[in-house]
């Protein structure tokens, strides 16, 4: 019983870490730059889920005040993540613009093909 409780208490965090590591692996191992950026967004979203998990309170409701209800989840992580999501797409857009420029310069977005072009021009 104690074991299942311990698993249930941290299950969210573990899935978040698995997602985070999946994104991390894509970023460091995949040669295609667009796949790298997708890995980065997976990583970002896992962090968002982590924050919203911190905000969650069992038996509480969304932080919109109504009469006759006292338990609300923590609004502060929601605020932070709300802005982080929009900033996330802004960084993704800049990254994609860089990828398009790299493609214009080298004709490819595959890292393994760009590397030899850089060493012997």
């Amino acid at each position, binding site marked *: 019983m104690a074991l299942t409780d311990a698993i249930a208490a941290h299950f969210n965090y573990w899935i978040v870490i698995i997602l985070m590591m999946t994104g991390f692996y894509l970023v460091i191992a995949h040669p295609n730059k667009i796949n790298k950026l997708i890995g980065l967004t997976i990583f970002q979203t896992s962090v968002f889920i982590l924050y919203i998990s911190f905000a969650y309170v069992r038996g509480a409701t*969304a932080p*919109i005040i109504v009469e006759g209800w006292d338990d609300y989840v923590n609004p502060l992580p929601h605020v932070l993540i*709300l802005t982080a*999501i*929009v900033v996330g*797409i*802004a960084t993704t857009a800049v990254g*994609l613009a860089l990828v*398009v420029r790299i493609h214009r310069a080298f004709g490819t977005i595959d890292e393994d093909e760009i590397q030899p072009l850089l060493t012997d021009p």
Partner: protein
Amino acid sequence: MRDNIVLSVVARLLMPFILLFALYVQFHGEVSPGGGFQAGVIFASAFVLFVLVYGIDAAEGIIPDGFLRGGIAGGVLLYAGIGVLGLLLGSNFLDYNVLAADPKNGQHLGIVLIELGVGTTVASVVTAVFYAFVRSKR
């Protein structure tokens, strides 16, 4: 894709509802879920739909480039301007209490105006970025 009648009719039907929903999310944000960030993206997505169906040239006829650039800068200026207005009225930067006679109304006014600034910038940036991607295809 303009030739596909289903697409163009559905897009034309959906556009006003998407824009209306964006405005609802924008101005009802203090009561229900929503606010400037979400409204901006929804507003921009209406124009993304328009560009996808009718092409970039038709979209430029409706929202020209200069307007978007004005929106990008104008939203930030509106936000910072509200902050400076608080300074001029004798309080701290971004303190909305002095914007109206009653501090509560001042806060309300401040939040609505700031969310408007956020929404303008986000909508213009997302639309302008999409225009830029589409245009560099040519």
